[in-house]
């Protein structure tokens, strides 16, 4: 029942907010209450799973129609659900001052419900429905509250992911037909017959890999990110990207283990390409938001590499990478959004010396940047480390290519810090609308309320990755032995 609440609360919040959200105050309260409530339930679920280590399940049955709302939470989904619930609060707080707030909050909560639906679905059809349902609020968030090029970006986002999901749907249908056990997803599904695995694997991969995204299926991401409103970017980078990697771990590995093993070198190559390519692209960006967007491609490259290794260490690395990237990218997008609200530009060259003019913003930005480049002691490192070590263990020195990306990550991150935070404050040019740099104000209490807990979690996870890995261990260990038992 608690699992159903995780979807029901944000969904109810979305409905209420859409209906009575004319008033700003009401919309804020409803959205905050719904997101806090969801997070509270997520905490209960976390605690329940942590103490019993048994998957939580929920099934809604109706006479005659069978059961059609099958939910489950295990070590793979619990951390991601918690991340979604957390970022849900952050996204609500970050969109405190948007226009048409009722609708905005409604879409945000609907998005949260849909994403949690993906992570909890224990039914292939429900998984697909939730997967597609994510698209709709996101599409409208970008299209309705985005920046100058929002229509183009929204459409590109839609076409990419929709094309991918169409193929994925075919794959899921085949899976159901070939599996012969209905649409439900048992805790440990039986693999389908080896002959059909390759076809099914790649059909599913079409949808999953677009979402992650891997190069060259990634170009929707920078556009979507740049045009999306801050809350949209936070959710997009924070949790939507994880759906693809989650799908690989949840569906591809157990149902098509042989095909997964055969495809592992390709996945690893895609991961490494993403690490290097995303970093190289980030290095060339002048738009701060675009830079963070490309860094997401690189970070998800580490996640894919960890998955591809198929070992427990690698899967743990992927899980840590996902949670860390959710926190770090969420924080970075929030900071960039806050800066944009003040200066009305995201051009790296327009800033300078913010370490002097906005010391609080700058301090947090430096911490987030260091986390993003994988500095030990912060959350980015354990996942990257585990993914690289596991990838190396499986694939050898080819993985050393990722080292280029590790150096480049330092380059693009610190370049941004140098240009934005360092330098003379006088170099801050008046932005396009004539706002003077003196008018920039530092983060206020609400904004610190968003940023400081994220920083605290980033530090905590960096020092003690077992906050996440202990929860995920049993499920990922079982998954690894599935991926490993294959001939």
């Amino acid at each position, binding site marked *: 029942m608690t699992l159903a609440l995780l979807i029901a609360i944000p969904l109810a919040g979305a409905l209420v907010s859409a209906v009575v959200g004319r008033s700003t105050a009401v919309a804020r309260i409803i959205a905050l209450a719904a997101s806090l409530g969801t997070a509270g339930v997520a905490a209960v679920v976390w605690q329940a799973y942590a103490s019993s280590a048994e998957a939580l399940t929920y099934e809604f049955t109706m006479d005659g129609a069978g059961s059609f709302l099958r939910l489950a939470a295990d070590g793979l989904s619990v951390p991601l659900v918690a991340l979604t619930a957390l970022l849900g609060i952050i996204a609500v707080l970050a969109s405190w001052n948007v226009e048409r707030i009722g609708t905005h909050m409604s879409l945000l909560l609907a998005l949260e419900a849909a994403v949690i639906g993906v992570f909890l679905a224990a039914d292939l059809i429900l998984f697909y429905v939730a997967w597609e349902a994510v698209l709709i609020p996101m599409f409208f968030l970008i299209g309705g509250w985005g920046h100058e090029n929002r229509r183009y970006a929204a459409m590109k986002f839609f076409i990419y992911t929709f094309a991918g999901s169409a193929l994925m749907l075919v794959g899921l249908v085949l899976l159901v037909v070939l599996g012969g056990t209905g649409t439900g997803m048992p805790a440990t599904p039986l693999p389908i017959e080896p002959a059909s695995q390759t076809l099914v694997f790649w059909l599913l991969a079409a949808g999953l890999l677009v979402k992650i995204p891997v190069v060259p299926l990634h170009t929707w991401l*920078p556009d979507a990110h740049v045009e999306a409103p801050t809350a949209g970017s936070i959710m997009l980078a924070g949790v939507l990207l994880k759906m693809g990697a989650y799908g690989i771990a949840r569906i591809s590995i157990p149902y098509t283990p042989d095909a997964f093993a055969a495809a592992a070198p390709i996945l690893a190559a895609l991961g490494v390409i993403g690490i290097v390519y995303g970093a190289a*692209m980030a290095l*060339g960006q002048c738009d701060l938001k675009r830079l963070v967007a490309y860094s997401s491609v690189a970070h998800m490259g580490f996640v894919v590499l960890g998955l591809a290794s198929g070992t427990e260490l690698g899967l743990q690395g992927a899980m840590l990478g996902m949670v860390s990237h959710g926190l770090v990218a969420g924080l970075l997008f929030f900071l960039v959004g806050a800066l944009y609200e003040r200066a009305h530009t995201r051009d790296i060259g327009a800033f300078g010396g913010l370490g002097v003019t906005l010391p609080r913003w700058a301090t947090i930005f430096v911490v987030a940047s260091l986390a993003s480049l994988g500095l030990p002691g912060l959350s980015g490192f354990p996942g990257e480390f585990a993914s690289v*070590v596991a990838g190396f*263990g499986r694939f050898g020195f080819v993985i050393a290519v990722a080292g280029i990306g590790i150096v480049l990550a330092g380059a693009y991150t610190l370049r941004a810090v140098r240009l934005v935070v360092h330098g003379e404050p006088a170099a801050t040019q008046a932005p396009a609308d004539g706002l003077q740099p003196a008018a920039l104000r530092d983060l206020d209490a609400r904004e610190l309320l968003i940023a400081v807990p994220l920083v605290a979690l980033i530090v905590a996870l960096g020092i003690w990755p077992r906050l996440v890995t202990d929860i995920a261990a049993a499920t990922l260990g079982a998954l690894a032995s599935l991926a490993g038992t294959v001939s």
Partner: protein
Amino acid sequence: MMPLWFVLVAPIAVALVIAAAGRGPVRYTRWLALVGPVAAAWAGAERLADAGRETGVAAEAVSWFVTQTGSIDVGASADPIASIMLVVVGVVASMVVVFSFGYMAEDASQPRYFALLSAFTAAMTGLVLSTSLVGLFIAWELVGACSYLLIGFWFTKPSAARAAVKAFLVTRVGDVGLLFALALLWRETGTLVTADVLAAVPTLAPATITTAALLLFVGAAGKSAQFPLHVWLPDAMEGPTPVSALIHAATMVAAGVFLLARTWPLFEASETARLVVLIIGTVTALGAATIAVPQTDIKRVLAYSTISQLGFMFAALGAGAWVAAFFHLVTHAAFKSLLFLASGSVIHGSGTQDLREMGGLGRAMPVTAATWAVGVAALAGLPPLAGFFSKDAVLDAVWVHAPVAGAALFIASALTAFYSFRATRLAFSGTFRGAGHPHESPLVMKVPLVVLAVLAATLGAGSWWFAELLGGHAGLAIPIAVASTIIAGLSAVAGWALYKTGPAADDRLAGALGGLWRAAAGAYGIDALVMRGAAASERGAATASERFDTRLVDGLVRGIAWLARRVGREFNELQSGESQLYAALVGAGAVLLASLALWLGR
């Protein structure tokens, strides 16, 4: 006995307190920055005093990362080399903190400064104490981050901001080597606990050992500024001078030497790896010494000198004499941090870093001048100062092992003595050539100078104790000692005598040496070349991927989008706008799904 956890945790707590307390009470809170260094020195000294009976007390290991097949553990313990490092780090850091009370007194960002110094102490002691390679790597990166933040301490200065990034990135190239060394050792031995890895060395294939050792050396070369990864260290001088003394002379840059000493069995088992270390070390020692000669910035002289001296240490490692290398690390920490602090005092008192604008400071700053003199004499390797003993040990080991490298190091020693006394004469002798009136520094800056000068003068006596503790061989190699003393003495006299005329001697030497002088003054263009190469590949990578993104990938997508719009227009003449189209598509999809679900669910 001082618990190790306190040594690690106290400076972190202190850093947070200093940062949180802010500017108001910094005059008091900055004293807290001494807690970490004093605790470290204390803990190290206690354990060394005990060393005869007990070597290090292992703290309980903690599993940082757990899988069913193995766990990645971290822990702390202090064996003799860790204890020695604790004392080195603790003593130098204490002196640097005290010196900074005076040097940084006017700076508005003192809380940030002292907090970062304290954080650095924590990271550096973590590096030294770690029982596992993962813990070492974590601390290794954290000292790099502190170095980055301290080089860029005056971040409004674009050159400082640039130097900080450069230092971080160049050392990160090395760090990637270290990371893959760890990955390789984990794959081959299934553990990253240092002792277990080293115990497994005899079971490893020779190729694996050599690869792992070379990857470790890549990491060491980055941190310790060995050719060709040395390019960051001269720029790192943009940081406050006490920071240069602590991080970029005495401790962090020596971490590479420590790493090799720590993982010595791997190098012992690989002749190839040792040969590479010997060659790189020798090339660095000689090359950097030549570059130090024509430098006019007092800090750059010291920076290249540091690179060169680290080269001496690596040459000794390459020759198999890790104890000699480690001994030189300790004495170098004393006399080089002394020289940096003295140069800080010079800069503080004269208002310039340019040797050509100095002169006559010996009269104006007697204490600084006297302590500096001890430092350069030690650096030049003149008896009976500390540098004499440790350099003798290095020269002896390398000479016996590989006479060619030994000869190169003799030339490097001659150059060392020469540039040391050149700089000394330019700064302290003659009359002041700069603007204003140079003055001696306050007591709080003089005390650390005197303490370090005493150490730089007397540490040599520790060479026997050192050898006994670590199991190396002790005692002076008399022929080498005599030869090196004569060479160093003559070069020192030459440097002193030639520069009687002040900076004009530079021009005479430049005239005599022509292109060679200019090339050395420009650091042989390596830095420019590396930076140009890095910038070009950076740009290249960015443009190439940008093109790929916008032309190929997006071109394809635009094609599909165009197709979709065409289809959409055909289908939906009644509706206008794209969102309706997609809403309709989704609706159709939902219907499709519902029917499918009903059909399958039955």
